[in-house]
């Protein structure tokens, strides 16, 4: 997510990564159970807890549940600081059971590709005309199927926001409308936001994405030009609220060298 970094920091006082983290943090309500993930979502979770959602609880696929997050910068969810003082270190099935029971409010996912219906691909990439093998699902498919809401973070780019993904690693709204129900997926589930380097996409009742907000200094045209399908735009399009001082200070306390928020 390096594209916009240094100049942005100078002119605006924050990077686009920091803006994305702040936007992601606001997707977490107080007291919610959150499948956290690493990197930007982890920072977003920490920001949410230290600002508007002090009771948010973090879950990790290795079985770890934390009511009070580790204050150290983590490279993986299995880093020793994430285990010490955890609320519970259980088995993977313990946290996946909570997920399948419908108790997990929101899960954060990254993706190589997302499409107009919020389907995600993290298995097969495309660069020029070559197919690239990517790492795969991990827990992403499980979270996309079973969390009450899913929030996706990725760089905004025509090749990554594409009309239809080449491989559905993690299902969004499929081909739209009642597709999720027809597949047998839980009623209360599905993507709720795609936070990119240019704006925030949300989903209509028909399951198709629309542009809900643009980041400060970004034009709608720029967003549309960088999206691989004809993206609908909200009637009441807003500008993404910049990160507050409180939000920025948490991010910079945890990640002073901009390791994650370049």
């Amino acid at each position, binding site marked *: 997510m390096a594209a916009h970094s240094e100049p942005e920091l100078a002119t605006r006082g924050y990077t686009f990564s920091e803006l994305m983290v702040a936007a992601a943090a606001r997707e977490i309500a107080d007291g919610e159970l959150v499948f956290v993930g690493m990197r930007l979502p982890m920072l977003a979770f920490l920001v949410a807890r230290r600002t508007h959602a002090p009771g948010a609880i973090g879950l990790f*696929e290795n079985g770890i549940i934390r009511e009070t997050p580790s204050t150290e910068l983590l490279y993986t969810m*299995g880093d020793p600081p994430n285990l010490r003082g955890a609320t519970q270190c259980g088995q993977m099935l313990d946290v996946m059971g909570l997920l399948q029971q419908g108790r997990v409010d929101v899960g954060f996912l990254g993706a190589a590709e997302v499409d107009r219906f919020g389907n995600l691909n993290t298995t097969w990439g495309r660069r020029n005309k070559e197919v*690239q093998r990517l790492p795969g*699902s*991990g827990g992403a*498919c*499980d979270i996309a*199927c079973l969390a009450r809401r899913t929030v996706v973070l990725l760089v905004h780019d025509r090749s990554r926001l594409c009309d239809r993904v080449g491989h559905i690693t993690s299902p969004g709204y499929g081909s739209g409308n009642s597709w999720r129900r027809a597949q*047998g*997926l839980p009623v209360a589930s599905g993507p709720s936001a795609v936070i990119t380097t240019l704006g925030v996409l949300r989903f209509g009742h028909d399951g198709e994405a629309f542009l809900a907000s643009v980041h400060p200094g970004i034009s709608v045209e720029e967003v549309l030009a960088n999206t691989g399908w004809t993206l609908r735009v909200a009637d009441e399009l807003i500008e993404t609220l910049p990160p507050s001082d409180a939000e920025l200070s948490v991010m910079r306390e945890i990640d002073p060298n901009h390791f994650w928020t370049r």
Partner: protein
Amino acid sequence: MTSESKLLTMREAIARHVPSGSMVLLGTQLEQMIPFAAGHELIRQGRRDLTLVGPISDILFDQMVGAGCVARVMAAWVGNVSAGVGYCFRRAVEHGIPRRIETVDYSNFTMALALHAAALGVPFMPTYATLGSDLLKKNGNLREFSSPVSEEKLVAVRALRPDVAILHVQRADAQGNAHLWGSLGVAVDGARAARKLIIVAEEIVEPGVIASDPNRTLVPGFLVTAVVHEPWGAHPSPVQGYYGRDHEFFAQYHDQTRRLEDFEEWLAHWILQAPDRRTYVNLLGAARTEGLGVKQHALSAAVDFGY
């Protein structure tokens, strides 16, 4: 009393219990306690046509694929957790270098359920996970079916019974009774799912230490095939209470495996020319291992099994 020792060296354990063609479960504790020493010994002993099974393995599967040991990978995620993709895995899948491999893609949850089914002795486990995904379409071990007790679609995750599971733990006795703590992942089911079980331990302790806390015992010793005492056997992955994660090692691996020639150099330096784990630890050097050591202990409160 079944009290004969099951202690073997890593070399013996791999030679006796993991032939070419085996289905091997590795990396059950996700980013912690990955049995790198065992994987390196499999590479040194020239195993071929292995099927690797595990939710993720950080860079271990990548190394074994790059060394040509692997015919098939059944996993949820293969790469380098802190640095990104795994270049050896990509070269094998995309270009058949050093050989073509088959991939069977799971999600973390469905991999856990495949091992859970085997541990419980049933042919499958039901779940809603992967409905609507291409994992369900392409992985023959995931099959949609109708719930026998409700009007719902479900996915049947077929039981996976590996030939051998290799688990790294903190401490074990010579009979295989082991204490594992911190990151559990799919270790409990994985240990019971496999036909053979090799325990690799940071420390070998008296049986009384394990028996003092039988709730923490991973599996009863009679399920364990061999016990290997291998300090630092999980490096560069962390072992709670013993050493931290060597993030730099993962970053270096990423940089030094982008090109095939560089990977071959890496492989020679860290695995092929290091005949055992002691040599590997010496290559790391004392400064590095000291840096990874425990700086602040955090002991658990005791519980009383008395009466």
